[in-house]
């Protein structure tokens, strides 16, 4: 579905991605793990076209989207729940969801809102509350819900567990699995919380200083001693 071929991304003189090739197939959950500064978020941002890749190609269903403007990429079926959630703080939960329905033209608004509320019942309770007054976990739910409102074919999630209470992290990861299983939505997930992310992933990549250093099935990587040493034993303690 989505292919990155030898993608390089630069911020000025700093090369954040040094030739990354990643593939996401229809119906999969693909996880990218890596430590701080490995280029995980840059990878997602590059797919969205901001910043654009300096070299290499990004293909969506065979179509080259490397040079497509960020706001047009959403219309091609890639939706992003950006890092740091970026909720519209002064707008209500429902208005936030409505902003997400811009690409789908708002035709299925009510139906899609109900779907989001089934997925995250917590949002329904807060329907007219301002986005900025929600807790971190609720904001993350709203962020994912907002991205789903665009009726994407591919959902990009940037660290959905960042700064969120463990119980809500579990809820959010359950929801991600549910979207994938029931709606057949393809998901590309970027995470520092490697344990949770690898558990739900069909396939995974390990990113380190701008390069893919390892790839394989989610379970495989979860069992891999190197991965455990680098991202799990230490990482898990941090999370718990």
């Amino acid at each position: 579905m989505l292919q990155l071929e030898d993608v390089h991304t630069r911020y000025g003189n700093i090369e954040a991605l040094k030739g990354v090739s990643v593939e996401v197939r229809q119906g999969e959950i693909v996880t990218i793990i890596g430590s701080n500064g490995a280029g995980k978020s840059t990878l997602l941002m590059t797919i969205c076209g901001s910043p654009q890749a300096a070299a290499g190609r990004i293909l969506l269903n065979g179509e080259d989207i490397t040079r497509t403007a960020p706001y047009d990429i959403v219309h091609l079926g890639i939706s992003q729940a950006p890092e740091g959630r970026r909720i519209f703080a002064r707008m209500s939960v429902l208005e936030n969801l409505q902003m997400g329905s811009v690409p789908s033209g708002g035709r299925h608004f009510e139906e899609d809102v109900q779907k989001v509320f089934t997925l995250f019942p917590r949002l329904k309770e807060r329907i007219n509350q301002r986005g900025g007054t929600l807790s971190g976990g609720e904001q993350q739910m709203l962020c994912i819900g907002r991205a789903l409102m665009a009726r994407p074919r591919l959902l990009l999630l940037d660290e959905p567990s960042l700064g969120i209470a463990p119980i809500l992290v579990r809820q959010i990861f359950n929801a991600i699995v549910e979207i994938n299983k029931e709606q057949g939505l393809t998901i590309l997930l970027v995470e520092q919380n490697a344990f949770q992310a690898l558990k739900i992933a069909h396939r995974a990549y390990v990113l380190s200083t701008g390069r893919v250093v390892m790839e394989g099935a989610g379970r495989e990587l979860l069992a891999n001693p190197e991965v455990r040493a680098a991202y799990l034993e230490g990482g898990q303690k941090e999370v718990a």
Partner: protein
Amino acid sequence: MPSAVSKQALPAALKDAAIAAIVAFILFLPIIGMQLQPGSGGLDVNFRLPLVLIGAAIVFVGRLLLGLLGSRRRAPRAGPSIMERVAAGVAANGRWLGLVGILFALTMPFMPFSNRYVVDVGTTVLIYVMLGWGLNIVVGLAGLLDLGYVAFYAVGAYSFALLGTTAGMGFWYCLPLAGLLAAMFGLLLGFPVLRLRGDYLAIVTLGFGEIIRIVLLNWTNVTNGPNGISGIPRPSFFGLDFARSPEPGTTAFHQYFGIPYSGEQRVIYLYFLILLLALITNFFVIRIRRLPIGRAWEALREDEIACKALGINPTNTKLTAFALGAMFGGFAGAFFATRQGFVSPESFTFIESAIILAIVVLGGMGSQIGVVLAAIIIVLLPELGRDFAQYRMLIFGAAMVGIMIWRPRGLLAHRSPTVLLHPKGGPRPADVPPSVKEAGA
């Protein structure tokens, strides 16, 4: 209980008051402390140290009282403040308040207390209300800080002045043209500032406003420079002029209706004209807030990156905000020109931009009724203060500082959601009025 609080707060308040007194002393030294007097061989400086000390003492006592009272007030209060509730109430009953306001505005010229002066002031208030509503699109909704809004007002005024005096076109033909020209200038300003936000944007718009004014001042061939343009055609009522003795072959308003001539007729007509224009602006802004483009403005104000991630084109969104805001400024400008019959660059200085921006900010960003309230305060306060002669600007300034201390986010800063969920078959969310209060806020 109060004594305990003040005992704790006293040293801090004393220190605070002392600092304020020292600052005041330094400031007053040249302002009050030195008086120029004609003396032998030119001007002599008369030092008035006692006055400065008295001034500093007043500041000290005032600041001390403020500090002591303020510390007592800072105790956490239960529930929202009175103004908070008023703001929420206004937002919830906006429709009724708006209706009452419109009714009052419609009947105002015929009220017993009304006279030419009152209607004239009412017209000025309405001009600022309209400008405030126009700027509200740019600043309140789209969150683009524009310090040069008066430029569009000037473009509208001069386009009508020039078209009216040279091409002999009437007000009603020129009004849409003035709006269109102003909108084009809005785009002109919009393009270079697309990537700017906040302070940087403010500086560029400030410069833009000054450029327009300086061009008007110096392009003598076209604009007649500082002398301005006079003899601008007055508006007609469906082709009927408001003149005592109309040109041969035309009928004047008073002749057609068979009533005696009165100078007030035109004043009242102008009042209703700006009322109509302002209401059109308001209606437009309220409607557009519920359309995708209006929501996109608000979303852009909140978070530009999130907007991009949601497929909103920030370029188009910003440009439409600039263009539409400018368009209403242009309409108001055309009205201003026809009302005064004379325009000169002096009417379009930075202070006008500042006043319009103050109206939007004082009213509460994005609040339509807040703009009306703030426009009334800002226009009426200096008018009411005329009895106090040289102190009126002082009172005006103090009132503005007071409002910002009391209501830092504006008089009526309260936002109701523009979308509510309805069961299937009900009205579409876009058509639902924002009548339900925000829960919990």
